[in-house]
C-alpha cells in the first residue's frame, strides 16, 4: 500500500518537475518578450542615456544570450536566489514571503466562509433533492458564481462602509492601533467578497457527493436498522461527501489566488496579488516572474499534497 503511494508520489513529482520547467520557460519568455524587455523600467526613466542603459544591461547580465540568462535564472531559482527587485533591490523571495501573510489571512478567512456556506447549501440541496429549496439553492449558487468579484466588493464597500460606516473600506489595519478587532473589521469585507463567490464551488460538489451517498444501499441498511437520520448524515453522508473534497481543495486553493488578486485590488489589501499587479505596473519583472513561479509551485504542491492526503484518508481508495 505504502509502496504504491510512494510510487505514485514519485511519478507525480517527476511530472510536476517537467510542468514547472515548462512553466518557468513560458514565464521567462513572456516577460522577456514584452515591449522594452526587462530594461523597460530603466529606459523610461528621465535622463537615461543609451550608454548608461548598456551598463545596466551588462551589470544585470541582460547582454548575454537569452538561453544562458534562462539557465542562470533557473539555477538561481533552485538555489533560492530568485533575483532582486528593480524597485528596491530587495530579494524577490523575501518580498513575496512578506506579502504572503496578508494573502493567507484573506484566503483562510474566505475559505471558512465559503466552506461553511457551501456545506449548508450542499447538504440542504441533497437532503431536499428535487424540492423547491433544492432548486432555490442551485439558483443562488449560479448567481453567486456569476458575480464579478470586484463588483461585489464595490457593492459591499458602498453599502457596508460608505453608507453605514460599519466596516473600513480597505487596508489591512488602521494605522496606529493594530488590535485584533480592528484587524477583523478590516478583514470582514474582503473575506466576505472572496468567500461568497466561492460558496457555489463547494456547494455543488457537496450537493453531488452527498446526493450520491444518500442514494447508496448502505444508507437504506442503516435506516432499516433504526439508525436516526441525523446520525446517518453525521456519520455516513458527511464523511463520504467531504473526503473526495480533499483533492478538489488541492486544485481549488491555488485558484483562490486569482480571486485574491482582484479582491486585494478592490480593498487595497497588501497581499501577493497586489504585489503581482504592482510589479507588472512598475515593470518590475523579477518580482512578477517570481510571483508567477511561486504560484505555479503552490498549484502543484497543493494538488500533490491533497491527492496523497486523500489516498491516506479515504478507505474507499484502498480496496
Amino acid at each position: 500500500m505504502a509502496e504504491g503511494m510512494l510510487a505514485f508520489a514519485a511519478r507525480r513529482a517527476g511530472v510536476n518537475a517537467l510542468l514547472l520547467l515548462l512553466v518557468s520557460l513560458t514565464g521567462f519568455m513572456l516577460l522577456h518578450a514584452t515591449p522594452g524587455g526587462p530594461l523597460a523600467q530603466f529606459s523610461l526613466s528621465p535622463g537615461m542615456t543609451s550608454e548608461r542603459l548598456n551598463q545596466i544591461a551588462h551589470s544585470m547580465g541582460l547582454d548575454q544570450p537569452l538561453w544562458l540568462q534562462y539557465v542562470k535564472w533557473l539555477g538561481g531559482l533552485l538555489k533560492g536566489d530568485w533575483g532582486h527587485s528593480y524597485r528596491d533591490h530587495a530579494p524577490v523571495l523575501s518580498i513575496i514571503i512578506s506579502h504572503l501573510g496578508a494573502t493567507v489571512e484573506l484566503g483562510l478567512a474566505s475559505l471558512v466562509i465559503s466552506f461553511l456556506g457551501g456545506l449548508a447549501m450542499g447538504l440542504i440541496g441533497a437532503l431536499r433533492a428535487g424540492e423547491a429549496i433544492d432548486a432555490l439553492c442551485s439558483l443562488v449558487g449560479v448567481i453567486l458564481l456569476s458575480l464579478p468579484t470586484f463588483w461585489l466588493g464595490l457593492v459591499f464597500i458602498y453599502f457596508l462602509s460608505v453608507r453605514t460606516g460599519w466596516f473600513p473600506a480597505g487596508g489591512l489595519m488602521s494605522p496606529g492601533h493594530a488590535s485584533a478587532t480592528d484587524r477583523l473589521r478590516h478583514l470582514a469585507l474582503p473575506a466576505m467578497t472572496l468567500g461568497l463567490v466561492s460558496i457555489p464551488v463547494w456547494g455543488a460538489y457537496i450537493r453531488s457527493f452527498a446526493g450520491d451517498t444518500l442514494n447508496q444501499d448502505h444508507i437504506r441498511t442503516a435506516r432499516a436498522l433504526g439508525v436516526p437520520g441525523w446520525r446517518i448524515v453525521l456519520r455516513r453522508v458527511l464523511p463520504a461527501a467531504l473526503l473526495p473534497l480533499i483533492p478538489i481543495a488541492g486544485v481549488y486553493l491555488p485558484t483562490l489566488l486569482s480571486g485574491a488578486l482582484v479582491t486585494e485590488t478592490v480593498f487595497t489589501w497588501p497581499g501577493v496579488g497586489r504585489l503581482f499587479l504592482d510589479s507588472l505596473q512598475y515593470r518590475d519583472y523579477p518580482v512578477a516572474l517570481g510571483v508567477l513561479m511561486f504560484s505555479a509551485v503552490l498549484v502543484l504542491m497543493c494538488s500533490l499534497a491533497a491527492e496523497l492526503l486523500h489516498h491516506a484518508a479515504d478507505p474507499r481508495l484502498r480496496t
Partner: protein
Amino acid sequence: MTLLSVRDLGVDFGGPLIVDGVSFSMKKGEIVALVGESGSGKSVASLALMGLLGRGNITGSAMLRLNDGRETDLVRIGPRERRGVLGRHVSMIFQDPLSSLDPIQTIGAQMREVLSLHCGLRGGKAQARAIELLHEVGIVDPQACLKLIPQRLSGGMRQRVLIAMAIAGEPELLLADEPTTALDVTVQAQVLRLLLSLRARSGMGMIFITHNLAVASSIADRVIVLYAGQVVEDAPADAFFAAPAMPYSKALLGAAPGIDSVFGARRLPTLRGQVPAPGERGVGCRFAPRCDAMRPTPCQTQMPDLLTIADGENEVHAVRCGRWEELAR
C-alpha cells in the same frame, strides 16, 4: 401465536396500485417465503412495511405483536416510534451485500453503532458482543474482521456481517429481500443454513423475499405467491410444492422440474410473456393472458377472490383462481 398480521396492504405512487390488497399473517418463528417475478410488488411491499419507501401512499395495516405483548401497526407508526421498532423488533437485510455496508467505516464501528442504539452497549461490552455476534454468524476470526473496512470482505462474509447487525437487537421479525441472489451458489447454501440455524436458536420469524423457488423450498415453512401486486396463492410449503393450486404456481414449478432445493440440482423457471404493467391490467384474473387454463369466463370477466381451499390445523391453503376446483380434479 400470531407474530404479524398484514391486512389489505396497498401501495401506490400516485398511479395504479403496485401492491394491491395484500393480506397474510404469520406465526412466531415462522419462515414465510414471498415469491414472485420482478414487478410482482414483493420488494415494494416489504419496503412499505419497513417504512423505507420514502414516497408513495400506503394503506391497510400490518399489526406486529412484540415480545412484551404490545402490538404496533407498521403502516401507521410515526417516524420516531418506527426508529424504536426498526433494528430492535424488525430488521431487514438486502440483496446486495457489497453495497449495503458503509465503505468508509470499519465493520467494528458499524456494529458498535447498532449495539449502542439497540442494546445500550458501549466500549468493551459492545466489542465483546460484536465478537459474539460475528462468531454466531460463522465468521472465523471476528476480532480481525471488526478492524476491517467492508471492501476487504467477500460477498458472503459481508452478508454474514449484515445478518449479525440485523440480529444484534434480537428482533422478532427479519425481512430478507433476496439476501442470497448476489452470492455464489455454494455461499448461497451456507447463508440459508445460517438463517435456518438462527431461527432455530432465537425463534425469530422471517419474511424471505425471493424469485427463486428452489431457495424458497429450502428455507420456507410457508409460501406466498405474489402476482401483479396480489397474493395469488398462500400455502404451507409441503402442500405448495406437492400440489400447487394456482396455474401460475404450477407454471412456475412446472417450468423447473425436479425442484428440490438449492442444495441439489435446479433449473430456472421459464414462462411465456411477462407480468402486466400496473396500468395494463384487465378486469379479470391478472394472470389470464399468460394462463394455459384460461377460459373467457370467468377468467377474463371477473377478478377471482382469494379462496381458502384447505384449513387443517392452522395450516391454511388459499388460492386466487376462478377454476381451481375444476383444475384440481
